[in-house]
Protein backbone atom coordinates (compact mmCIF):
# COMPACT_ATOMS: atom_id res chain seq x y z
CA UNK A 1 0.00 0.00 0.00
CA UNK A 2 1.06 3.56 -0.68
CA UNK A 3 2.30 5.76 2.14
CA UNK A 4 0.12 8.86 2.13
CA UNK A 5 1.72 10.86 4.91
CA UNK A 6 5.29 10.39 6.04
CA UNK A 7 6.90 11.86 9.14
CA UNK A 8 10.63 11.64 9.26
CA UNK A 9 12.71 12.35 12.33
CA UNK A 10 10.39 14.99 13.80
CA UNK A 11 11.61 16.89 16.85
CA UNK A 12 10.09 19.60 18.96
CA UNK A 13 11.33 21.23 22.15
CA UNK A 14 9.46 23.48 24.53
CA UNK A 15 12.20 25.05 26.61
CA UNK A 16 13.82 22.19 28.49
CA UNK A 17 11.17 19.67 27.51
CA UNK A 18 11.89 17.51 24.48
CA UNK A 19 8.21 17.04 23.65
CA UNK A 20 8.97 15.06 20.49
CA UNK A 21 12.35 13.49 20.02
CA UNK A 22 13.09 12.01 16.60
CA UNK A 23 9.83 10.43 15.58
CA UNK A 24 9.38 8.79 12.18
CA UNK A 25 6.45 6.85 10.80
CA UNK A 26 4.39 6.46 7.67
CA UNK A 27 0.63 6.56 7.35
CA UNK A 28 -0.65 4.13 4.74
CA UNK A 29 -3.57 5.24 2.63
CA UNK A 30 -6.91 3.96 3.85
CA UNK A 31 -5.70 2.75 7.23
CA UNK A 32 -6.25 3.88 10.77
CA UNK A 33 -3.09 4.60 12.71
CA UNK A 34 -3.14 5.00 16.47
CA UNK A 35 -0.71 6.97 18.62
CA UNK A 36 -0.80 5.71 22.19
CA UNK A 37 0.92 7.10 25.19
CA UNK A 38 0.50 8.56 28.66
CA UNK A 39 -0.14 12.24 29.38
CA UNK A 40 2.66 14.40 28.06
CA UNK A 41 4.07 11.70 25.79
CA UNK A 42 4.00 14.08 22.82
CA UNK A 43 0.97 12.80 20.92
CA UNK A 44 -0.71 16.16 20.49
CA UNK A 45 2.57 17.81 19.55
CA UNK A 46 3.17 15.25 16.79
CA UNK A 47 -0.33 15.50 15.43
CA UNK A 48 -0.20 19.31 15.41
CA UNK A 49 3.11 19.31 13.59
CA UNK A 50 1.60 17.06 10.93
CA UNK A 51 -1.41 19.36 10.67
CA UNK A 52 0.85 22.37 10.22
CA UNK A 53 -0.44 24.06 13.40
CA UNK A 54 2.89 23.77 15.20
CA UNK A 55 6.24 24.28 13.51
CA UNK A 56 8.65 21.41 13.97
CA UNK A 57 12.15 22.18 15.24
CA UNK A 58 13.56 19.47 13.04
CA UNK A 59 12.53 16.72 10.66
CA UNK A 60 10.41 16.57 7.54
CA UNK A 61 6.84 15.77 6.61
CA UNK A 62 5.84 14.45 3.20
CA UNK A 63 2.35 14.23 1.75
CA UNK A 64 2.01 12.02 -1.30
CA UNK A 65 5.79 12.04 -1.57
CA UNK A 66 6.17 15.83 -1.57
CA UNK A 67 6.99 18.14 1.35
CA UNK A 68 3.73 19.37 2.88
CA UNK A 69 2.58 22.83 1.88
CA UNK A 70 -0.35 25.11 2.63
CA UNK A 71 -2.53 23.14 0.22
CA UNK A 72 -2.47 20.23 2.62
CA UNK A 73 -5.11 22.12 4.63
CA UNK A 74 -7.63 21.34 1.91
CA UNK A 75 -6.99 17.62 2.27
CA UNK A 76 -6.74 17.42 6.05
CA UNK A 77 -9.61 17.09 8.51
CA UNK A 78 -8.77 18.06 12.04
CA UNK A 79 -10.35 17.40 15.40
CA UNK A 80 -8.36 19.02 18.20
CA UNK A 81 -8.08 17.64 21.69
CA UNK A 82 -9.85 20.78 22.84
CA UNK A 83 -11.58 23.28 20.60
CA UNK A 84 -13.79 26.28 21.04
CA UNK A 85 -16.30 27.55 18.55
CA UNK A 86 -17.54 31.10 18.37
CA UNK A 87 -20.34 31.95 20.77
CA UNK A 88 -23.95 32.06 19.61
CA UNK A 89 -23.41 29.69 16.70
CA UNK A 90 -25.78 26.86 15.95
CA UNK A 91 -24.64 23.45 14.78
CA UNK A 92 -25.85 24.11 11.24
CA UNK A 93 -24.21 27.54 11.09
CA UNK A 94 -20.91 26.10 12.29
CA UNK A 95 -21.00 23.48 9.54
CA UNK A 96 -21.90 26.10 6.94
CA UNK A 97 -19.15 28.47 8.02
CA UNK A 98 -16.41 25.85 8.07
CA UNK A 99 -17.71 24.42 4.81
CA UNK A 100 -17.37 27.75 3.04
CA UNK A 101 -13.66 27.90 3.89
CA UNK A 102 -12.94 25.04 1.50
CA UNK A 103 -13.00 24.81 -2.29
CA UNK A 104 -14.80 21.43 -2.33
CA UNK A 105 -16.92 21.11 0.81
CA UNK A 106 -18.76 17.90 1.59
CA UNK A 107 -22.56 18.12 1.24
CA UNK A 108 -23.86 19.28 4.62
CA UNK A 109 -26.81 16.88 4.64
CA UNK A 110 -24.40 14.00 4.28
CA UNK A 111 -22.36 15.19 7.27
CA UNK A 112 -25.49 15.63 9.35
CA UNK A 113 -26.47 12.12 8.47
CA UNK A 114 -23.05 10.54 9.02
CA UNK A 115 -22.56 12.17 12.41
CA UNK A 116 -26.23 11.99 13.49
CA UNK A 117 -26.58 15.71 14.11
CA UNK A 118 -30.21 15.92 12.99
CA UNK A 119 -31.76 16.26 16.44
CA UNK A 120 -29.89 19.37 17.50
CA UNK A 121 -29.12 21.16 14.25
CA UNK A 122 -30.45 24.51 15.41
CA UNK A 123 -29.13 24.35 18.92
CA UNK A 124 -26.45 26.74 20.14
CA UNK A 125 -23.23 24.76 19.92
CA UNK A 126 -22.41 25.64 23.54
CA UNK A 127 -25.49 23.81 24.72
CA UNK A 128 -24.57 20.35 23.47
CA UNK A 129 -23.76 17.34 25.60
CA UNK A 130 -20.20 16.01 25.54
CA UNK A 131 -21.03 13.29 23.03
CA UNK A 132 -23.07 15.59 20.80
CA UNK A 133 -20.26 18.10 20.85
CA UNK A 134 -17.66 15.52 19.83
CA UNK A 135 -19.93 14.48 16.95
CA UNK A 136 -20.20 18.08 15.82
CA UNK A 137 -16.42 18.54 16.03
CA UNK A 138 -15.95 15.36 14.04
CA UNK A 139 -18.42 16.63 11.44
CA UNK A 140 -16.41 19.86 11.21
CA UNK A 141 -13.27 17.78 10.72
CA UNK A 142 -15.01 16.09 7.80
CA UNK A 143 -16.45 19.27 6.32
CA UNK A 144 -13.87 19.43 3.53
CA UNK A 145 -14.25 15.77 2.59
CA UNK A 146 -10.63 15.25 3.68
CA UNK A 147 -8.18 12.56 2.61
CA UNK A 148 -6.49 12.41 6.00
CA UNK A 149 -8.40 12.80 9.27
CA UNK A 150 -6.59 13.69 12.49
CA UNK A 151 -8.46 12.80 15.67
CA UNK A 152 -6.79 13.85 18.92
CA UNK A 153 -8.39 11.90 21.77
CA UNK A 154 -11.84 11.88 20.19
CA UNK A 155 -13.50 9.92 22.98
CA UNK A 156 -11.90 11.34 26.11
CA UNK A 157 -14.56 12.26 28.62
CA UNK A 158 -17.37 10.34 26.94
CA UNK A 159 -19.47 7.68 28.64
CA UNK A 160 -19.05 4.09 27.36
CA UNK A 161 -22.18 4.31 25.22
CA UNK A 162 -21.15 7.57 23.56
CA UNK A 163 -17.65 6.20 23.09
CA UNK A 164 -18.99 3.18 21.24
CA UNK A 165 -21.15 5.44 19.07
CA UNK A 166 -18.10 7.42 18.12
CA UNK A 167 -16.16 4.25 17.36
CA UNK A 168 -18.92 3.24 14.94
CA UNK A 169 -18.59 6.63 13.33
CA UNK A 170 -14.82 6.36 12.96
CA UNK A 171 -15.24 2.94 11.41
CA UNK A 172 -17.74 4.38 8.94
CA UNK A 173 -15.27 7.09 7.96
CA UNK A 174 -12.55 4.52 7.49
CA UNK A 175 -14.88 2.43 5.36
CA UNK A 176 -15.23 5.47 3.10
CA UNK A 177 -11.54 5.07 2.35
CA UNK A 178 -10.20 7.93 4.44
CA UNK A 179 -6.87 7.68 6.22
CA UNK A 180 -7.08 8.25 9.96
CA UNK A 181 -4.52 9.21 12.57
CA UNK A 182 -5.89 9.07 16.07
CA UNK A 183 -4.49 9.40 19.55
CA UNK A 184 -5.98 7.79 22.59
CA UNK A 185 -5.37 6.63 26.11
CA UNK A 186 -7.77 3.75 25.68
CA UNK A 187 -6.34 0.41 24.72
CA UNK A 188 -9.72 -1.06 23.77
CA UNK A 189 -10.19 1.88 21.45
CA UNK A 190 -6.87 1.34 19.71
CA UNK A 191 -7.51 -2.39 19.53
CA UNK A 192 -10.98 -1.82 18.09
CA UNK A 193 -10.19 0.87 15.54
CA UNK A 194 -6.54 0.79 14.53
CA UNK A 195 -4.80 -1.26 11.89
CA UNK A 196 -1.53 -0.15 13.31
CA UNK A 197 -0.44 1.50 16.51
CA UNK A 198 2.64 3.19 17.83
CA UNK A 199 3.23 3.30 21.56
CA UNK A 200 5.15 6.33 22.64
CA UNK A 201 6.57 7.82 25.79
CA UNK A 202 8.78 10.82 26.51
CA UNK A 203 8.62 12.00 22.90
CA UNK A 204 9.75 8.72 21.37
CA UNK A 205 8.04 5.80 19.70
CA UNK A 206 8.83 2.70 21.74
CA UNK A 207 7.23 0.14 19.51
CA UNK A 208 4.84 -0.07 16.60
CA UNK A 209 2.88 -2.67 14.69
CA UNK A 210 -0.64 -4.05 14.44
CA UNK A 211 -2.22 -4.55 17.87
CA UNK A 212 -2.40 -8.31 17.41
CA UNK A 213 1.16 -8.68 16.20
CA UNK A 214 2.46 -6.53 18.99
CA UNK A 215 0.73 -8.66 21.59
CA UNK A 216 1.86 -11.87 19.99
CA UNK A 217 5.41 -10.58 19.70
CA UNK A 218 5.72 -9.58 23.30
CA UNK A 219 3.55 -12.04 25.17
CA UNK A 220 2.90 -15.73 25.14
CA UNK A 221 1.18 -15.94 28.50
CA UNK A 222 -2.29 -15.33 29.89
CA UNK A 223 -3.25 -13.69 33.16
CA UNK A 224 -5.06 -15.50 35.97
CA UNK A 225 -6.81 -13.18 38.40
CA UNK A 226 -7.87 -14.19 41.89
CA UNK A 227 -9.37 -12.20 44.76
CA UNK A 228 -6.68 -11.50 47.34
CA UNK A 229 -8.88 -12.93 50.10
CA UNK A 230 -8.94 -16.34 48.42
CA UNK A 231 -5.23 -16.80 49.04
CA UNK A 232 -4.80 -17.44 52.77
CA UNK A 233 -1.00 -17.37 53.06
CA UNK A 234 1.44 -14.81 51.71
CA UNK A 235 0.92 -14.93 47.91
CA UNK A 236 4.62 -14.31 47.38
CA UNK A 237 5.37 -17.75 48.79
CA UNK A 238 3.53 -19.48 45.94
CA UNK A 239 5.91 -21.02 43.40
CA UNK A 240 4.38 -18.85 40.68
CA UNK A 241 5.06 -15.40 39.07
CA UNK A 242 2.62 -13.45 41.23
CA UNK A 243 1.78 -9.74 41.25
CA UNK A 244 -0.22 -8.33 44.12
CA UNK A 245 -2.60 -5.42 43.36
CA UNK A 246 -3.22 -3.94 46.79
CA UNK A 247 -5.83 -1.41 45.75
CA UNK A 248 -8.02 -3.74 43.73
CA UNK A 249 -7.37 -6.50 46.29
CA UNK A 250 -6.57 -8.96 43.53
CA UNK A 251 -3.67 -11.20 42.73
CA UNK A 252 -2.51 -11.69 39.16
CA UNK A 253 -0.55 -14.73 38.04
CA UNK A 254 1.15 -14.96 34.65
CA UNK A 255 0.91 -18.37 33.07
CA UNK A 256 2.18 -20.09 29.92
CA UNK A 257 0.52 -23.34 30.90
CA UNK A 258 -2.90 -22.89 32.51
CA UNK A 259 -3.33 -26.52 33.53
CA UNK A 260 -0.04 -26.57 35.40
CA UNK A 261 -0.77 -23.29 37.13
CA UNK A 262 -4.21 -24.38 38.25
CA UNK A 263 -2.79 -27.61 39.57
CA UNK A 264 -0.36 -25.67 41.77
CA UNK A 265 -3.17 -23.47 43.01
CA UNK A 266 -5.29 -26.52 43.91
CA UNK A 267 -2.32 -28.13 45.64
CA UNK A 268 -2.11 -25.05 47.83
CA UNK A 269 -5.82 -25.35 48.77
CA UNK A 270 -6.77 -22.15 47.03
CA UNK A 271 -10.43 -21.77 46.04
CA UNK A 272 -10.93 -21.12 42.33
CA UNK A 273 -14.46 -19.74 42.78
CA UNK A 274 -13.30 -16.19 41.97
CA UNK A 275 -10.88 -17.14 39.19
CA UNK A 276 -10.80 -15.06 36.01
CA UNK A 277 -8.59 -15.66 33.03
CA UNK A 278 -7.82 -12.93 30.53
CA UNK A 279 -5.40 -12.52 27.67
CA UNK A 280 -2.66 -9.95 28.00
CA UNK A 281 -3.67 -6.54 26.69
CA UNK A 282 -2.02 -3.50 25.19
CA UNK A 283 -2.32 -2.06 28.67
CA UNK A 284 -0.02 -4.77 29.96
CA UNK A 285 2.26 -4.23 27.02
CA UNK A 286 2.58 -0.59 27.78
CA UNK A 287 3.30 -1.33 31.40
CA UNK A 288 5.89 -3.89 30.43
CA UNK A 289 7.57 -1.49 28.00
CA UNK A 290 7.60 1.67 30.06
CA UNK A 291 6.96 0.63 33.64
CA UNK A 292 4.16 3.19 33.68
CA UNK A 293 0.41 2.95 33.73
CA UNK A 294 -0.97 4.12 30.40
CA UNK A 295 -3.66 6.21 31.98
CA UNK A 296 -1.35 7.81 34.50
Amino acid at each position, binding site marked *: MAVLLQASNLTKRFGDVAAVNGVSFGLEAGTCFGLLGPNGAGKTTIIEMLEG*ITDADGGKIFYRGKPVGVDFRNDAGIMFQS*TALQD*YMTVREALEMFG*SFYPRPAPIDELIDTCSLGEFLDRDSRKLSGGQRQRLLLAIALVNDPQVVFLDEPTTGLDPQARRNLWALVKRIRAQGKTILLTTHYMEEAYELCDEIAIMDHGKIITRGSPKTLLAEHFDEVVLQLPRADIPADPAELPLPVTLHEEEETVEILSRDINATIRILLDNDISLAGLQIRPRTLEDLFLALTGEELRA
Partner: protein
Amino acid sequence: MSWRRFLAVLKARNREFIRDRSALGWNIFFPVLIVAGFAFAFSGKPMDLYKVGVYAADPVQKLAEVQKTQAFFRTDYIQFIPISKLAPAITKVERHQLDMLFDLDQHHYWINRDSPKGYLLERVLHGADTVADITNSPAGNFQRQTVSGREIRYVDWLIPGILAMNMMFSALFGVGYVIVRYRKSGVLKRLQATPLTAFEFLSAQVVSRLWLILAITSGVYAGADLFIDFSMFGNYALLLLVFTLGAVSLISLGLLVAARIASEELAGGILNVLSWPMMFLSGVWFSLEGTNPLVQKLALLFPLTHVIDAARAIMIDGAGLAGISTQLVVLTLMSAVFLLLGAVLFRWK
Protein backbone atom coordinates in the same frame (compact mmCIF):
# COMPACT_ATOMS: atom_id res chain seq x y z
CA MET B 1 -8.10 36.81 -0.72
CA SER B 2 -11.20 34.69 -1.05
CA TRP B 3 -14.46 36.63 -0.78
CA ARG B 4 -16.34 33.50 0.16
CA ARG B 5 -14.18 32.93 3.22
CA PHE B 6 -14.18 36.62 4.11
CA LEU B 7 -17.97 36.78 3.93
CA ALA B 8 -18.38 33.61 5.97
CA VAL B 9 -16.33 35.08 8.83
CA LEU B 10 -18.05 38.46 8.51
CA LYS B 11 -21.46 36.83 8.70
CA ALA B 12 -20.48 34.74 11.71
CA ARG B 13 -19.07 37.75 13.58
CA ASN B 14 -22.11 39.92 12.86
CA ARG B 15 -24.42 37.16 13.97
CA GLU B 16 -22.48 36.65 17.16
CA PHE B 17 -22.65 40.34 17.96
CA ILE B 18 -26.35 40.70 17.22
CA ARG B 19 -27.27 37.61 19.23
CA ASP B 20 -25.21 38.70 22.20
CA ARG B 21 -28.01 40.70 23.77
CA SER B 22 -25.96 42.20 26.56
CA ALA B 23 -23.21 43.50 24.26
CA LEU B 24 -25.74 44.78 21.75
CA GLY B 25 -27.78 46.39 24.52
CA TRP B 26 -24.76 48.11 25.96
CA ASN B 27 -23.67 49.41 22.58
CA ILE B 28 -27.09 50.99 22.10
CA PHE B 29 -27.75 52.01 25.68
CA PHE B 30 -24.43 53.73 26.32
CA PRO B 31 -24.78 56.28 23.49
CA VAL B 32 -28.39 56.95 24.52
CA LEU B 33 -27.08 57.67 27.99
CA ILE B 34 -24.50 60.05 26.58
CA VAL B 35 -27.02 61.95 24.47
CA ALA B 36 -29.49 62.13 27.35
CA GLY B 37 -26.78 63.34 29.71
CA PHE B 38 -25.65 66.13 27.45
CA ALA B 39 -29.15 67.08 26.40
CA PHE B 40 -29.90 67.57 30.07
CA ALA B 41 -26.69 69.44 30.76
CA PHE B 42 -27.18 71.87 27.88
CA SER B 43 -30.89 72.46 28.21
CA GLY B 44 -32.23 75.71 29.66
CA LYS B 45 -30.78 79.19 29.35
CA PRO B 46 -27.06 79.78 29.39
CA MET B 47 -25.72 79.77 32.90
CA ASP B 48 -24.77 83.00 34.63
CA LEU B 49 -21.07 83.49 34.76
CA TYR B 50 -20.77 85.24 38.14
CA LYS B 51 -22.46 84.77 41.49
CA VAL B 52 -22.87 87.77 43.78
CA GLY B 53 -24.44 87.56 47.24
CA VAL B 54 -26.54 90.46 48.50
CA TYR B 55 -27.05 90.72 52.27
CA ALA B 56 -29.54 92.97 54.05
CA ALA B 57 -32.08 92.72 56.83
CA ASP B 58 -34.68 92.10 54.14
CA PRO B 59 -32.42 91.05 51.24
CA VAL B 60 -35.12 90.32 48.64
CA GLN B 61 -36.82 93.68 48.91
CA LYS B 62 -33.57 95.58 49.30
CA LEU B 63 -32.14 93.91 46.21
CA ALA B 64 -35.21 94.89 44.20
CA GLU B 65 -34.71 98.50 45.35
CA VAL B 66 -31.05 98.77 44.43
CA GLN B 67 -31.64 97.10 41.09
CA LYS B 68 -33.87 100.08 40.23
CA THR B 69 -31.35 102.68 41.24
CA GLN B 70 -27.93 101.17 40.56
CA ALA B 71 -26.85 99.86 37.17
CA PHE B 72 -24.34 97.39 38.57
CA PHE B 73 -27.10 95.29 40.10
CA ARG B 74 -28.71 94.97 36.68
CA THR B 75 -25.57 93.65 34.94
CA ASP B 76 -26.23 90.71 32.64
CA TYR B 77 -24.59 87.34 33.28
CA ILE B 78 -24.34 88.04 36.99
CA GLN B 79 -26.60 86.09 39.26
CA PHE B 80 -27.59 88.13 42.33
CA ILE B 81 -28.44 85.97 45.30
CA PRO B 82 -30.30 87.38 48.32
CA ILE B 83 -28.48 86.43 51.54
CA SER B 84 -29.97 86.59 55.02
CA LYS B 85 -26.99 85.38 57.08
CA LEU B 86 -23.73 87.19 56.68
CA ALA B 87 -21.12 84.95 58.31
CA PRO B 88 -21.69 81.77 56.23
CA ALA B 89 -21.79 83.91 53.11
CA ILE B 90 -18.35 85.31 53.92
CA THR B 91 -17.08 81.77 54.22
CA LYS B 92 -18.50 81.08 50.76
CA VAL B 93 -16.51 84.01 49.41
CA GLU B 94 -13.41 82.54 51.02
CA ARG B 95 -14.09 79.31 49.19
CA HIS B 96 -14.80 80.93 45.82
CA GLN B 97 -18.37 79.67 45.96
CA LEU B 98 -19.54 83.29 45.86
CA ASP B 99 -17.52 85.66 43.74
CA MET B 100 -18.58 88.78 45.64
CA LEU B 101 -20.72 89.69 48.63
CA PHE B 102 -22.54 92.96 49.47
CA ASP B 103 -23.80 94.11 52.83
CA LEU B 104 -26.32 96.72 51.70
CA ASP B 105 -27.06 97.84 55.26
CA GLN B 106 -23.47 98.50 56.31
CA HIS B 107 -22.28 99.40 52.76
CA HIS B 108 -19.49 96.84 52.72
CA TYR B 109 -18.44 94.49 50.04
CA TRP B 110 -16.19 91.45 50.23
CA ILE B 111 -14.08 89.91 47.53
CA ASN B 112 -11.50 87.17 47.68
CA ARG B 113 -8.03 88.48 46.87
CA ASP B 114 -7.17 85.17 45.21
CA SER B 115 -10.23 85.02 42.98
CA PRO B 116 -9.94 86.24 39.38
CA LYS B 117 -13.71 86.47 39.17
CA GLY B 118 -13.80 88.68 42.23
CA TYR B 119 -11.15 90.90 40.70
CA LEU B 120 -13.16 91.33 37.50
CA LEU B 121 -16.38 91.96 39.36
CA GLU B 122 -14.71 94.71 41.36
CA ARG B 123 -13.58 96.33 38.12
CA VAL B 124 -17.12 96.08 36.80
CA LEU B 125 -18.47 97.56 40.03
CA HIS B 126 -16.22 100.60 39.77
CA GLY B 127 -16.75 101.07 36.08
CA ALA B 128 -20.36 100.05 35.67
CA ASP B 129 -21.82 103.50 36.08
CA THR B 130 -19.24 105.25 33.96
CA VAL B 131 -19.10 103.32 30.67
CA ALA B 132 -20.64 106.32 29.06
CA ASP B 133 -17.98 108.53 30.58
CA ILE B 134 -15.15 106.40 29.28
CA THR B 135 -16.36 106.29 25.71
CA ASN B 136 -17.20 109.96 25.64
CA SER B 137 -14.29 111.36 27.57
CA PRO B 138 -11.40 112.88 25.62
CA ALA B 139 -9.03 110.57 27.46
CA GLY B 140 -10.83 107.50 26.24
CA ASN B 141 -9.96 107.75 22.57
CA PHE B 142 -11.86 104.66 21.74
CA GLN B 143 -14.80 104.31 19.48
CA ARG B 144 -17.20 101.56 20.21
CA GLN B 145 -17.50 99.00 17.41
CA THR B 146 -19.80 96.04 17.62
CA VAL B 147 -19.86 92.71 15.90
CA SER B 148 -22.45 90.03 16.33
CA GLY B 149 -22.31 86.34 15.65
CA ARG B 150 -23.10 83.04 17.05
CA GLU B 151 -20.73 82.08 19.80
CA ILE B 152 -18.98 78.73 19.69
CA ARG B 153 -20.59 77.26 22.71
CA TYR B 154 -19.06 74.44 24.67
CA VAL B 155 -21.71 72.08 23.35
CA ASP B 156 -20.77 72.78 19.71
CA TRP B 157 -17.22 72.05 20.59
CA LEU B 158 -17.98 69.02 22.70
CA ILE B 159 -20.33 67.03 20.43
CA PRO B 160 -17.69 66.09 17.81
CA GLY B 161 -15.40 64.99 20.63
CA ILE B 162 -18.07 62.86 22.28
CA LEU B 163 -18.96 61.17 18.99
CA ALA B 164 -15.31 60.37 18.36
CA MET B 165 -14.66 59.18 21.89
CA ASN B 166 -17.60 56.80 21.83
CA MET B 167 -16.27 55.49 18.54
CA MET B 168 -12.81 55.01 20.01
CA PHE B 169 -13.98 52.79 22.86
CA SER B 170 -16.10 50.68 20.55
CA ALA B 171 -13.24 50.29 18.09
CA LEU B 172 -10.46 49.48 20.53
CA PHE B 173 -12.30 47.22 22.92
CA GLY B 174 -14.81 45.78 20.46
CA VAL B 175 -12.09 44.39 18.23
CA GLY B 176 -9.05 43.98 20.45
CA TYR B 177 -10.86 42.26 23.25
CA VAL B 178 -12.83 39.93 21.00
CA ILE B 179 -9.73 38.69 19.20
CA VAL B 180 -7.88 38.06 22.46
CA ARG B 181 -10.91 36.14 23.75
CA TYR B 182 -10.99 34.06 20.54
CA ARG B 183 -7.31 33.30 20.91
CA LYS B 184 -7.56 32.35 24.55
CA SER B 185 -10.52 30.05 24.07
CA GLY B 186 -9.00 28.33 21.01
CA VAL B 187 -11.42 29.64 18.38
CA LEU B 188 -8.47 31.05 16.44
CA LYS B 189 -6.58 27.78 16.57
CA ARG B 190 -9.53 25.97 15.00
CA LEU B 191 -9.72 28.60 12.27
CA GLN B 192 -5.98 28.36 11.67
CA ALA B 193 -6.43 24.71 10.72
CA THR B 194 -8.58 25.77 7.76
CA PRO B 195 -7.46 27.53 4.57
CA LEU B 196 -8.71 30.84 6.03
CA THR B 197 -5.90 33.41 5.91
CA ALA B 198 -5.06 35.88 8.67
CA PHE B 199 -5.77 38.72 6.27
CA GLU B 200 -9.25 37.41 5.45
CA PHE B 201 -10.02 36.89 9.10
CA LEU B 202 -8.73 40.29 10.21
CA SER B 203 -10.41 42.25 7.44
CA ALA B 204 -13.72 40.59 8.29
CA GLN B 205 -13.29 41.73 11.89
CA VAL B 206 -12.54 45.28 10.74
CA VAL B 207 -15.52 45.47 8.42
CA SER B 208 -17.89 43.97 10.96
CA ARG B 209 -16.88 46.54 13.59
CA LEU B 210 -16.78 49.36 11.07
CA TRP B 211 -20.39 49.11 9.98
CA LEU B 212 -21.47 48.77 13.57
CA ILE B 213 -19.53 51.86 14.63
CA LEU B 214 -20.82 53.91 11.71
CA ALA B 215 -24.41 52.84 12.39
CA ILE B 216 -24.13 53.68 16.07
CA THR B 217 -22.30 56.96 15.49
CA SER B 218 -24.96 58.01 12.99
CA GLY B 219 -27.62 57.04 15.50
CA VAL B 220 -25.98 59.06 18.26
CA TYR B 221 -25.64 61.99 15.91
CA ALA B 222 -29.31 61.84 14.93
CA GLY B 223 -30.36 61.45 18.55
CA ALA B 224 -28.22 64.36 19.66
CA ASP B 225 -29.62 66.44 16.79
CA LEU B 226 -33.15 65.88 18.08
CA PHE B 227 -32.51 66.91 21.65
CA ILE B 228 -29.48 69.17 21.62
CA ASP B 229 -28.96 72.32 19.65
CA PHE B 230 -25.47 72.13 18.20
CA SER B 231 -23.89 73.52 15.09
CA MET B 232 -23.19 71.66 11.86
CA PHE B 233 -22.02 73.94 9.09
CA GLY B 234 -20.16 71.43 6.95
CA ASN B 235 -20.84 68.59 4.58
CA TYR B 236 -22.34 65.35 5.94
CA ALA B 237 -20.54 63.12 3.44
CA LEU B 238 -17.23 64.63 4.48
CA LEU B 239 -18.04 64.06 8.15
CA LEU B 240 -18.86 60.43 7.37
CA LEU B 241 -15.54 60.10 5.58
CA VAL B 242 -13.69 61.44 8.63
CA PHE B 243 -15.47 59.07 10.97
CA THR B 244 -14.94 56.13 8.63
CA LEU B 245 -11.22 56.75 8.38
CA GLY B 246 -11.06 57.39 12.11
CA ALA B 247 -12.88 54.16 12.87
CA VAL B 248 -10.61 52.16 10.56
CA SER B 249 -7.50 53.61 12.18
CA LEU B 250 -8.75 52.93 15.70
CA ILE B 251 -9.94 49.42 14.86
CA SER B 252 -6.54 48.73 13.32
CA LEU B 253 -4.91 49.96 16.50
CA GLY B 254 -7.09 47.49 18.40
CA LEU B 255 -5.96 44.72 16.04
CA LEU B 256 -2.35 45.65 16.59
CA VAL B 257 -2.76 45.41 20.37
CA ALA B 258 -4.50 42.06 19.99
CA ALA B 259 -2.00 40.66 17.50
CA ARG B 260 -0.32 38.31 19.95
CA ILE B 261 -1.75 38.66 23.43
CA ALA B 262 -3.65 35.70 24.86
CA SER B 263 -4.63 37.22 28.20
CA GLU B 264 -7.74 39.33 28.47
CA GLU B 265 -6.36 41.12 31.53
CA LEU B 266 -3.21 42.21 29.73
CA ALA B 267 -5.14 43.27 26.65
CA GLY B 268 -7.59 45.20 28.80
CA GLY B 269 -4.70 46.92 30.56
CA ILE B 270 -2.99 47.96 27.35
CA LEU B 271 -6.25 49.15 25.81
CA ASN B 272 -6.89 51.27 28.90
CA VAL B 273 -3.39 52.69 28.78
CA LEU B 274 -4.10 53.72 25.19
CA SER B 275 -7.64 54.96 25.54
CA TRP B 276 -7.42 57.07 28.68
CA PRO B 277 -4.61 59.37 27.56
CA MET B 278 -6.34 59.60 24.19
CA MET B 279 -9.54 60.61 25.89
CA PHE B 280 -7.88 63.42 27.81
CA LEU B 281 -5.14 64.55 25.46
CA SER B 282 -7.01 64.40 22.17
CA GLY B 283 -9.09 67.35 23.27
CA VAL B 284 -12.43 65.65 23.79
CA TRP B 285 -13.23 67.65 26.92
CA PHE B 286 -10.96 70.67 26.83
CA SER B 287 -8.73 72.41 24.38
CA LEU B 288 -5.02 71.76 24.61
CA GLU B 289 -4.28 75.33 23.55
CA GLY B 290 -1.82 76.90 25.96
CA THR B 291 -0.82 73.61 27.57
CA ASN B 292 2.69 72.18 27.52
CA PRO B 293 3.92 72.04 23.89
CA LEU B 294 5.29 68.57 24.53
CA VAL B 295 1.83 67.34 25.44
CA GLN B 296 0.47 68.93 22.27
CA LYS B 297 3.06 67.09 20.19
CA LEU B 298 2.25 63.86 21.97
CA ALA B 299 -1.43 64.30 21.22
CA LEU B 300 -0.65 64.33 17.50
CA LEU B 301 0.38 60.68 17.79
CA PHE B 302 -3.18 59.71 18.65
CA PRO B 303 -5.59 59.00 15.81
CA LEU B 304 -8.39 60.38 17.95
CA THR B 305 -6.80 63.87 17.93
CA HIS B 306 -7.01 64.01 14.15
CA VAL B 307 -10.55 62.66 14.03
CA ILE B 308 -11.71 65.29 16.51
CA ASP B 309 -9.81 68.12 14.83
CA ALA B 310 -11.29 67.26 11.45
CA ALA B 311 -14.80 66.72 12.80
CA ARG B 312 -14.70 70.08 14.62
CA ALA B 313 -13.42 71.82 11.52
CA ILE B 314 -16.33 70.44 9.51
CA MET B 315 -19.06 70.93 12.07
CA ILE B 316 -18.05 74.27 13.55
CA ASP B 317 -16.21 76.00 10.73
CA GLY B 318 -17.85 74.28 7.78
CA ALA B 319 -14.45 73.20 6.47
CA GLY B 320 -14.27 71.51 3.07
CA LEU B 321 -12.06 68.74 1.81
CA ALA B 322 -9.06 71.06 1.54
CA GLY B 323 -9.46 72.21 5.12
CA ILE B 324 -9.13 68.74 6.56
CA SER B 325 -6.79 67.15 4.03
CA THR B 326 -3.93 66.95 6.54
CA GLN B 327 -6.02 64.97 8.98
CA LEU B 328 -7.31 62.69 6.23
CA VAL B 329 -3.79 61.91 5.07
CA VAL B 330 -2.55 61.31 8.61
CA LEU B 331 -5.49 59.02 9.42
CA THR B 332 -4.97 57.05 6.22
CA LEU B 333 -1.29 56.61 6.97
CA MET B 334 -1.98 55.58 10.55
CA SER B 335 -4.57 53.03 9.41
CA ALA B 336 -2.16 51.56 6.90
CA VAL B 337 0.70 51.30 9.40
CA PHE B 338 -1.42 49.81 12.19
CA LEU B 339 -3.16 47.37 9.88
CA LEU B 340 0.05 46.23 8.25
CA LEU B 341 1.89 45.82 11.54
CA GLY B 342 -1.12 44.08 13.06
CA ALA B 343 -1.33 41.62 10.18
CA VAL B 344 2.40 40.90 10.22
CA LEU B 345 2.56 40.41 13.98
CA PHE B 346 -0.68 38.44 14.13
CA ARG B 347 -0.52 34.93 15.61
CA TRP B 348 -3.42 32.51 15.71
CA LYS B 349 -2.13 30.83 18.86
